[in-house]
């Protein structure tokens, strides 16, 4: 059994609860043991890097130092946290002398999507699939920070990534080609300039629908929340009606691998996925 330090981050304790629950669920099936970091604190997210460069790095470093004490690798489900950690890691790699920190740069920081898409794990996933997601047409939505900037993420095909599509294919779903895989949903502007988030998310929902997707799949808490919770409001503004469930990729992994709690995860969505999954014969 492989063991990893786990940094859930703030949203997974609230709006993105089903992401936390499904990651833990999937790891249980794949026999990956997660040890939540004791006493973790917020990574600083968008607000720290928008306010003060020094503060942003220090808030991330505190958590990396904690993970280093635990040894080994750190699994990070939230792409915003992941991005902040990787930026801090780069800073330490390049300018270690400028920082007073216990962190020595020894933690291998893993973003959950990249982690589950790796060859060694993907083979295990293939073995564990009990309910192939046949007939489910998915638009894989990577968003921004899971792929950009590539000197941080190390994703080579950052304009047209394929790794989540491959994972969905292994689960038996049908990943569709579409052009908006890495377009921005407006992210943290949701609280302050909701109009921008509605406009960008409207574009994404429209393009997913044009690609004839049944649903969207993502590994970002902001993307999931922006796209899932505001479909009614976006529909009203643009005179349309949307009913496109937005899954975390780990939820679909759990569904295909027969996790007992999937219904509980799906019950947290505002755009109810149960009707779609029943129509496809994937849920009773």
């Amino acid at each position, binding site marked *: 059994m492989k063991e990893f330090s786990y940094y859930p981050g703030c949203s997974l304790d*609230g709006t993105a609860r089903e992401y936390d629950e499904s990651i833990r669920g999937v790891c249980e099936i794949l026999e990956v043991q997660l040890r939540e970091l004791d006493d973790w604190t*917020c990574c600083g997210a968008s607000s720290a890097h928008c306010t003060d460069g020094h*503060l942003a790095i220090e808030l991330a470093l505190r958590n990396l130092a904690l993970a280093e004490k635990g040894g080994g690798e750190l699994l990070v489900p939230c792409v915003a946290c992941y991005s902040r950690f990787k930026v801090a890691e780069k800073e330490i790699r390049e300018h270690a002398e400028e920082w007073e920190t216990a962190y020595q740069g020894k933690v291998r920081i893993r973003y959950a999507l990249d982690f589950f898409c790796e060859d060694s794990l993907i083979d295990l996933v293939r073995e564990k699939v009990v309910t192939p997601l046949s007939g489910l047409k998915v638009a894989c939505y990577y968003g921004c*920070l899971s792929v950009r900037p590539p000197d941080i993420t190390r994703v080579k095909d950052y304009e047209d990534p394929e790794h989540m599509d491959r994972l969905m294919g292994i689960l038996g779903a049908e990943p569709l080609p579409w052009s908006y895989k890495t377009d921005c949903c407006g992210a943290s502007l949701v609280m*302050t300039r909701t109009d*921008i988030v509605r406009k960008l998310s409207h574009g994404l929902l429209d393009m997913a629908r044009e690609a004839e997707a049944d649903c969207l799949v993502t590994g970002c808490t902001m993307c999931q929340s922006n796209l899932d*919770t505001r479909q009614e409001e976006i529909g009203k503004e643009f005179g349309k009606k949307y009913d496109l469930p937005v899954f975390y990729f780990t939820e679909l992994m759990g569904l295909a691998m027969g996790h007992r709690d999937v219904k509980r995860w799906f*019950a947290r969505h505002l755009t109810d996925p149960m009707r779609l999954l029943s129509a496809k014969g994937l849920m009773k």
Partner: protein
Amino acid sequence: MGVKGIKIEGHAAATDPSFLDLVAQEGGENLLACYQCQKCSAGCPVAYAMDILPNQVIRMVQFGLRERVLTSNTIWICASCYTCSVRCPNDIDIAKTMDVLRHIALKSGVKLAERDIPIFHSVFLDSIKSKGRIHELGLIWQYKAKTRDFMKDAALGWKMFRKGKIKLLPSKFGGGKEIRGIFSRYGKGK
């Protein structure tokens, strides 16, 4: 005075030749490499909401149009999606430069073009400072208290609460002392 006036948008604008150096130094980017191909603005998903486009920001920084850049809404509207940075043929990290411009704007005390975005960031950081983690409901309340917009998203909030997505109380943990230490150094800048 060392300040020359140039005409921009029909107004005489003050230029500050040291501004380019300041921005370039803080961000470590070679802003003079920009040759105005406008790829950054063409790919920017939020350009439509900006008062000056990303390529214009870079140009204005080169010209030392400090005030115009720091009082633009562009630096706040930028969603840090990094599309511009990855497409720049001259390897300028434009998104990172937007961060630097925000830092300078906040420190310099100019009148900011967006009201709510900087308020949100400050409430967010206050929340980390006092609790170490973000408790979403607490954050939203504090933000609403500052912006006086209590009704926005109230119905949505209720729906999310019913789905179990809103946690009423923050989680308990330590870490506070270290976080206070980090915040006491905050402002040293880099």
